[in-house]
């Protein structure tokens, strides 16, 4: 069980938040909510609206498209951003593998949050570019 200061310390170790000051990190922790999912529980649902931006604090998440696992994410990684940025329902299920602990920011708050933290937005863009590169490699 972590309180917000401990979570802020955890975030300080993630690449995504590397440029933020401690007060900014504490602001992030207050803006996000903590959510816990048990093994096999769905976090995001393919084709269903109303998701959020999820950041993994602990455990793993499986990205499943039409019943087939496409990727697995772990601590420090994030998901849910694609459907928020495009304004479309997720194209995959995201399912907890073991106990999954996340921070969540609801979709309507994400745009304002990213504008307020441009360095974090840049690092997210880098992570997305890396994912795109890996997907292209996999295809070629």
């Amino acid at each position, binding site marked *: *069980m972590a*309180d*917000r*200061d401990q979570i802020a310390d955890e975030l300080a170790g993630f690449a995504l938040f590397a440029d933020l*000051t*401690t*007060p*900014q990190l*504490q*602001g992030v*922790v*207050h*803006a996000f*909510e*903590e*959510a*816990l999912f*048990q093994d096999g*529980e*769905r976090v995001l*649902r393919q*084709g*269903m*609206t*109303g*998701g*959020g931006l999820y950041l993994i604090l602990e455990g793993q998440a499986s990205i499943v498209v039409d019943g087939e696992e496409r990727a697995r994410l772990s601590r420090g990684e994030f998901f849910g951003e694609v459907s928020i940025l495009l304004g479309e*329902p997720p194209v995959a299920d995201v399912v907890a593998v073991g*106990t999954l*602990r996340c921070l*969540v*920011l*609801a*979709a*309507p*708050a994400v745009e304002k949050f990213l504008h307020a933290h441009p360095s974090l937005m840049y690092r997210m863009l880098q992570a997305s570019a890396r994912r795109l590169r890996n997907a292209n490699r996999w295809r070629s």
Partner: protein
Amino acid sequence: MAELTARPFPPGDYPLIVVGSGPGGLQVSSALRGHGIAHAVLSADQEPGGMFRRWPFFQRLLSWTKPYAPVPRGTRPYERYDWNSLIPESDEHRAVMVGLMDGTSYFPSRPEMQAGLEAFASRTELPVRFGCRWTGTRRLDDGRFALETSDGEYTAGTLVFAVGVAEPWRPSSPGMELAAHYADTRPVEQYSDRRIFIIGKQNSGFELASGMLPWAKRIVIASPSPAKLSVNTHSLVGIRARYVQPYEDYVLGGGVAILDAAIERIERGEAGGAPFRVITRRSSDSVEMDFEADDVIAATGFVAPLLDLPDLGVVTFGQSRLPAQTPFWESATVPGIYFAGTIGQGSAGLKKHGIPSNSGAVQGARYNARVLARQIAERRFGYVRERPRIEAAKVVDFVLDELTLGPELWHQRAYLARVLTVDPADGIRDEGILPLAWFVDAGGPDAIAATLETDGTGAVYPVIYLRQAGTVSEHAIEAHPLLDYRTAAARRELTALLAPILGRS
């Protein structure tokens, strides 16, 4: 109140034990009795009411009971306008709050709310063993539970904890122990002509600030992230309209300061000066600022008082240390332990668009408790519920009526749903109110789930979930400005949507 003096439920073995006599405990007990499930109710308090015996300090609740509504008082649709009455199993005890409020506000005072809960318990003759404090829990070899209490040991196969989220919590910043907690707020006149520093921008912090506006010399409200207002989030997330006055005072420069800053530490002031110094660091630019204060109050929230349940394997999460729960409010990690009342918010549901359920408040938790009672009755006691048949031709009107009038859907949006199953051999059956997260994820026969949703824009619109051949799809129906979905357009839309699934029944 003969049961008060006779003290029911002496220590011993019971099929089921409910712990708590706040709204959650009373509601689940009433519904369990409605299903004929024998159970004991134990409470550390001396009378019913739970947290409403103490809070809110400044006398009025955030939940309303409208004496005049577009539907008749004391009917099921009236529950949409009466957020505070518990739901009885017989019509005569409905809308108990209306008759107990003095008419000066549609927000009941704390004493009125307490009176309402006492009236519900006494009029429906709900027995509770008061003055019996739960002190510990063990697992027996046969899988059942032993409950240690101030009156002796109880055993039961099923436990329902409705013990609130009322244990004061404060963060670990240095010197935080110097701050008084919200729970220890003194009579308001004792804050006259003083400099007050409030930590936390939730409703509790703003409630205190609102109450102190006529008394305090200066009020600073601080936490790392900006205040959210419910009128901006279009939901119950954020500071409710009733407590926004300090915010207006702040923007008009009246003596309130609202600050986005982390609390670095609290120190005792120097002799002859203010009793406390609060050192903060501004979120935007890390600038350090310090404030002198006569009183520092941590309005930093509460945690669930779960005693030793985590030792039994009950996993908790988040700032309020809520137990992780299934969609039916059973511990996600210890079967047989359930939660009712405000702790039920640990079963978050789909939380679509980031908007939480109202499970933390009476108007939401009362329906959860009724669904929970039926689930426990079925799953653990072999109770067989009624599943009324509905003719295919009447389904559309039935669903539109529920979407317009069903209080469960109004108060628990995107959380509880009216479910109809469709079986070619057996026909269409009304399965009653069920958790939407369960419907969406659990699989099962072809079915229709109707719920209401909001997306943060202010609109409230029906959403129909169809389960066909195991796959669930989501269909929003256009919002109506008067929130009445019994229109020709909605009827046409729903008829077309349901045609494929109803055609097979």
